[in-house]
């Protein structure tokens, strides 16, 4: 039920933002919006995708905080790749490394692997169990321990601190 309500709230916010109908003065448009929101939520329920992956809004605050931290990391990593693009003589050191992750749930693992890909200079190539194959532009940027903090933060953001 919590997932259902969370989805309703987020869909309502999305519809209001996209339609620009903040005041609800037009009853026809408002009721059409309500119908479409309910229909989407009921369809999601019928498809059986209303679980912690389909509606992860219970952890929205933690995920947003993680997102903010990740943005800073992305811009730091961008700088490295931009310098590599513009250096007068090409000097890169690509490597393929296996990264072990402590993420237990599929959600945490997806968040972690997508964070690696989103950061310029590293791409997650394959996920096998709790190991992720990562291709990196510089070998030392993917050395041992390089992803430990990201791993810990994505696990805490999507699964909570209790589980470790």
């Amino acid at each position, binding site marked *: 039920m919590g997932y259902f309500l969370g989805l309703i709230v987020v869909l309502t916010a*999305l519809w209001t*933002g*996209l339609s*620009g109908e903040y005041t609800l003065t037009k009853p026809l448009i408002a009721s059409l919006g309500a119908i479409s929101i309910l229909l989407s939520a009921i369809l999601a329920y019928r498809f059986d995708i209303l679980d912690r992956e389909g509606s992860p809004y219970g952890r929205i605050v933690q995920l947003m905080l993680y997102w903010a931290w990740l943005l800073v990391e*992305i*811009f730091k990593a*961008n700088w490295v*790749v*931009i310098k*590599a*693009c*513009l250096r007068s*003589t*090409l*000097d*890169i*050191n*690509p*490597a*393929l490394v296996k990264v072990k992750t402590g993420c237990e749930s599929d959600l945490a693992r997806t968040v972690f*692997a*997508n*964070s690696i*890909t*989103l*950061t*310029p*200079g*590293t*791409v*997650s*190539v*394959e996920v096998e169990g709790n190991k992720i*194959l990562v*291709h990196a*532009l510089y070998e030392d940027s993917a050395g041992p321990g390089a992803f430990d903090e990201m791993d810990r933060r994505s696990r805490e953001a999507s699964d909570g601190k209790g589980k470790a």
Partner: protein
Amino acid sequence: MIETVFEYWNAFRPALGSALLLVGAILAVIGTIGVLRFPDFYTRLHAASVTDTSAATLAILGMALLAPSFAVVIKLAVVWLFLFLTGPTSSHALANAAHTAGLQPMIGRLGESDGGDE
């Protein structure tokens, strides 16, 4: 007091928005240069991710500053969110497909002589 701040902000906004758009465009060009210079498929993917992340972010920020109404800003925020959710998925799909197909990445220190096309 508040009105003067708003006036200054409204006078300053188009310039700041245009500057951000310009920086975003330059970053996109840098990403393209990287795609052309890097030697193999996997390293080119890294160069393209500069365009994916910072260039897109700065361009959308610039557009938001130039936007005529708040509704447009919300739409741009949604576009940005979807870009950041779908971008890594498609990059991963590409890398995974190349890996599954058996394309071997070039490993180790690469200099100018390794670059270019085959």
